[in-house]
């Protein structure tokens, strides 16, 4: 290499460093501005949303949409990015929901009850979110570790089973009385006593009637206002985006394409799949946890809130928006939430009520499943990749041709030593 060439290189490198530094500073500044702006906005919403939108059912809908965006984002990690089919997302949402409801109620009771204040929510909500995420993540590990080590669709079967088991255990657990068969187990020490203790604590969750706080009919304190719901959705959305556009996301996509090839270049399939499943479960736990203590929400956590239809809705959100697309999942979450609400509204119109009087047993919610199924089938035929496919809204267009330009620029520079022999005629 000539000395002139070296100087040129050095100069170019120096300029590159400076440009990098400037770009990094600009980026940091932009991020800080965005963060402050977003923080201000959600803070404002927390106090002003009620006066802005007087109808509490609309407020509830908006916050529910945000929670469902979280549901879709978290399912997208395992289902869209890693390509592992999980159909028991409701189970992890339920774990999060119950955890968060119990933790919030207990904390509320320890404050001595009273008003649900914004200041208190800074203790209650973070603790709830952490507990929900941790608990759901722990079960994600327990479910994911054995099923993701195997090749094939075992995860689908195991997650489906897990979600149903979770729901049914909570729904059917009862306080044991002297007449309860097997009550003698209470006296048994060791494993029988252990199971009895677990049974007693689960039955305290209210069974089929749902959990309604520490004291019966008190209701779960609804601490998560718009500040928390929208704020956490934003933060976790950014994290999901970063996960996709990082080496980790790339490795997950590679794994989805070809597991053997991914392993051959050092991506351990079990490790990546299990970790992403745990991340996905934690996200579902947070989403369920927020829903349970959402302001303007229902102060009861019911096992039926987490039935199979909820898992199915989550899958529809991801597939509709485009498997693997973060913005697509968010759009899917919002769309499905609004569809559910729209059908509920139609359900209440005089026309439908009239029809109902004529045709006994007409249920639009059942119809909804039919509509979904048809939409999904149509989507699979016409646009199997979903609305967005794997692409993103607002993705940086400049990023794409960059690699080529970089390569070109280098090529035009003088060639380094040891250029490869010209191989075949290409």
């Amino acid at each position, binding site marked *: 290499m000539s000395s002139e060439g070296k100087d040129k290189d050095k100069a170019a490198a120096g300029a590159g460093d400076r440009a990098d530094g400037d770009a990094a500073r600009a980026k940091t500044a932009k991020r800080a501005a965005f963060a402050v702006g977003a923080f201000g906005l959600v803070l404002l919403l927390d106090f002003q949303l009620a006066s802005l939108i007087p109808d509490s059912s609309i407020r509830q809908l908006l916050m529910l949409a945000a929670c469902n965006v979280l549901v879709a984002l978290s399912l997208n990690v395992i289902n869209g990015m890693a390509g592992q089919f999980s159909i028991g997302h409701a189970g992890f949402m339920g774990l999060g929901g119950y955890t968060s409801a119990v933790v919030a109620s207990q904390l509320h009771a320890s404050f001595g009850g009273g008003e649900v204040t914004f200041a208190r929510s800074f203790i209650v909500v973070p603790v709830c979110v952490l507990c929900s995420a941790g608990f759901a993540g722990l079960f994600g590990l327990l479910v994911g570790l054995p099923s993701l080590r195997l090749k094939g669709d075992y995860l689908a079967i195991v997650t489906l089973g897990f979600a149903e088991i979770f729901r049914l255990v909570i729904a059917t657990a009862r306080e044991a009385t002297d007449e309860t068969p097997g009550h003698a187990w209470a006296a048994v020490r060791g494993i029988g006593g252990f199971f009895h203790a677990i049974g007693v604590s689960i039955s305290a969750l209210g069974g089929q009637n749902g959990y309604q706080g520490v004291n019966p009919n008190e209701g779960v304190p609804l601490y998560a206002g718009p500040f928390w719901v929208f704020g956490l959705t934003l933060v976790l959305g950014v994290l999901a985006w970063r996960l996709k556009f990082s*080496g980790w996301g790339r490795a997950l996509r590679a794994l989805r*394409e070809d597991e053997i090839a991914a392993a*051959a270049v050092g991506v*351990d399939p079990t490790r990546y799949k299990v970790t992403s499943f745990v991340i996905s479960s934690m996200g579902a736990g947070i989403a369920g946890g927020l829903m349970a203590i959402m302001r303007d929400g229902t102060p009861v956590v019911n096992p039926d809130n987490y039935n199979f239809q909820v898992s199915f809705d989550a899958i529809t959100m991801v597939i509709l928006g485009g498997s693997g697309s973060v913005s697509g999942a968010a759009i899917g979450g919002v769309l499905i939430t609004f569809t559910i609400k729209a059908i509920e509204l139609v359900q209440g119109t005089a026309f439908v009520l009239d029809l109902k009087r004529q045709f006994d047993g007409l249920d639009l919610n059942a119809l909804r499943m039919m509509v979904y199924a048809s939409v999904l089938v149509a989507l699979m035929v016409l646009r199997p990749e979903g609305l967005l496919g794997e692409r993103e809204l607002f993705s940086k267009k400049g990023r794409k041709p960059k690699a080529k330009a970089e*390569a070109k620029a*280098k090529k035009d520079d003088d060639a380094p030593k040891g250029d490869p022999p010209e*191989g075949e005629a290409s």
Partner: protein
Amino acid sequence: MKLLLEGVTKTFGGLRAVGDVSFSVENGAIFGLIGPNGAGKTTVFNLVTGVYKPDEGKITLGKKDLVPLKPAEIAAAGVGRTFQNIRLFGQLTVLENLLVACELQKKAGLAASLLRLGAHYSDERTMRARALELLRVFDLADAADEPSTSLSYGNQRRLEIARAMMLSPKVLLLDEPAAGMNYGEAEGLKTQIRWLRDEFKLTVVLVEHNMQVVMGVCEDIHVLDHGETIAHGTPDVVQKHPKVLAAYLGEEDEEAEADASSAEETA
């Protein structure tokens, strides 16, 4: 680094795919593994890379025992490979295909990536630079942003080699790299394999049916038939080995008869 197989055996049900195979590949060698279809060549590759576990025998790289390791750990130990039926990450771009192979060398963990700490950016920058450099070496830089499925067959094969090279492997296993190549392309491949070995101080193990490539580039050849070793030596020795001739062309008697009958026909 020396790759050593000792008494390696693998059976699938009643089929003995690889039976008591032993060979050693010296550091910096270009080693050929040949044999008729179904001889167990690809199975040997799958055993070395951990896709299958051998029933018996030892596989070591340098002093490291590869048998108990998982495929990803074997890749980390310095064994790169390509596949007979090309296995690229179809939905990923050409550049991304290479970047996936960087996961092992990343310094930033998942948390650092999510928080976008400095380590994440410096990782991405160095990996990207290396990947682009390799793409340039393999003459694929112009296609860096194309999906890998859009490449021609020959370019896909070269991309697979480039991806394996991202691991900075000590041993490179090439499974039929010349499949589907014409004479000119195969000649080019020979030069490229030699160049790779010299430039990156590699050990290359080659499974190949194309004798033009095998005899032209390999210094040492191991011949398998029905999972058993039938010959070993330099290209000259192997080419004249009666068992090799028999495996590839059939027994001599038959051949003579066939020759005779064809001679009769022409007469």
